């Protein structure tokens, strides 16, 4: 019987320090066949095991299209598993099972213009979207990223911004605060502040957003105020997960299992749930 709870061994191939507390790890499964068959969509996640410490759901921050024989996770140190991972070295191995969940509706819907709104670590599941856009740029129209972090030093993937811009993606950045001695010519304030300067219009645009729930609640509210409708806004939710496969029950919101029906949901769908999501905006 296939055991969905059994992690497979994956080896750390490369470690890239993004910020003081966030790191991107490149993995490949020890077993070549597994790695070959490992296919996923932008927005899906894996369950990452550190044996003896636990398991955590982590978005896949790379894109399949490159077919590089590896995949990436970008992880912020916040607790047991993520701290333990931070202590590992290239060559060490972890347990991985996945991919799980629905991704962004890139292949499901006709997508023309894209507005991506990310906060902090929330950029990780959107990075594969950006990579997808770059991979088949001609399929998309205007693509714009609004990205906020607490400080300039906490922005992820900064080394890739130039590439993204070269691919014709509008990248707008903001930070909550600029520590003394740091130069910053971007905007200062929460990510919704970028709405005032953004180029995206509601027409023919899909919005993907990921970040802290409180941020997303302001994002959806701000967008609705600017004429976007809940049907065109997609959010990636975070909930407690112990299985990733609809068994442990933790991630339920109403009848939805975030691990399987999500983590990406149309905002319109969330509005039909009795339990309030996104900081009570829905209710």
């Amino acid at each position, binding site marked *: 019987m296939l055991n969905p709870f059994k992690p497979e061994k994956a080896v750390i191939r490369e470690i890239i320090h993004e910020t003081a507390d966030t790191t991107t790890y490149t993995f490949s499964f020890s077993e070549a066949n597994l790695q070959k068959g490992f296919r996923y969509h932008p927005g899906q996640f894996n369950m990452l095991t550190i044996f003896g*410490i636990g398991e955590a759901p982590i978005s896949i921050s790379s894109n399949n299209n490159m077919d590089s024989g590896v995949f990436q996770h970008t992880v912020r140190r916040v607790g*047991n598993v993520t*701290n*333990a991972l931070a202590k590992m070295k290239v060559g060490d191995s972890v347990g991985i099972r996945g991919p799980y969940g629905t991704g962004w509706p890139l292949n499901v819907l006709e997508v023309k213009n894209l507005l991506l709104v990310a906060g902090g670590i929330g950029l990780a599941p959107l990075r594969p979207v950006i990579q997808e856009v770059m991979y088949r740029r001609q399929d998309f129209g205007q693509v714009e990223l609004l990205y906020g972090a607490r400080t300039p030093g906490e922005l992820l993937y900064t080394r890739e911004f130039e590439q993204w811009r070269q691919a014709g993606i509008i990248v707008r950045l903001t930070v909550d605060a600029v520590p003394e001695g740091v130069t910053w010519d971007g905007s200062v304030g929460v990510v919704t502040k970028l709405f005032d300067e953004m180029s995206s219009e509601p027409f023919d645009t899909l919005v993907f957003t990921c970040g802290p729930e409180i941020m997303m609640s302001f994002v959806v509210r701000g967008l609705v105020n600017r004429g976007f409708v809940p049907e065109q806004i997609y959010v990636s939710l975070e909930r407690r997960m112990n299985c990733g496969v609809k068994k442990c029950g933790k991630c339920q919101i109403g009848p939805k299992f975030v691990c399987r029906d999500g983590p990406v949901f149309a905002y319109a769908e969330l509005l039909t749930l009795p339990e309030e999501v996104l900081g009570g905006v829905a209710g």
Partner: protein
Amino acid sequence: MSKPKIAIYKMSSCAGCQLEILNFEPMLLDLLGAVDLSYFVMAKRENEEGPYDIGLVEGAITCGEEISRLKKARQQCRMLVAFGSCACYGGLPSIKNWTSEREIEERVYPQPHLLESTTAYGIDHYVTVDAYLKGCPASREELLEFVKGVLLGIKPYLRPHSVCVECKLHENVCLFTSQGKVCMGPVTTAGCGALCPANNKPCEGCRGPANDANTESLARTFDEYGLHRSDVVRLFRKFAGMTPEFSRGAEVL
């Protein structure tokens, strides 16, 4: 991490929690392979000087001398642990806190002026505490989880919820709803394996308040079961009467 150095401090206590370390028996030698019991006066004559990695403090703080010893322990230890309910909440010694110090002293000693004794507090009244190992006595399993956690640099999983959860997991007959005996289980932290109910004895709350303990509601149920107000007060002011949760339970009626 190399072998962490552990120091065991005794304050006002029965020594039962420290004894639980020796009670590891079959595992004791393995444990000693993993950690250094550097300062353990009950078991050793030659005790090393600090600093230590972990300080396990047993007992409530009931006098000035203990306060200064505790503060010194805090300086000496990277992590300071409240080891057992006395250290977590003041424990049983805190029962006296609701009677005047003088009156209590006079009941025991002919010449009370020779004593110096203060309100019994848990150690976090005076110093910051890194971890709490609840229970009277503290649980060996939890101590072990904690030690492994330190070795690994993680926060161990210690049950935060009510005793009822473990009571149900072990399928005990509920003393409260089946036998009409009032039980502190619904508001008390699990981790003991619901030991008392498993032995057909209501939980006495020795591990202190559980996550989100709704003590007021439980106190009202005690009342409905015909308990006198003073009985309810006694139930809440026993092992952890100094905690805000149990105080609310004691005072609601």
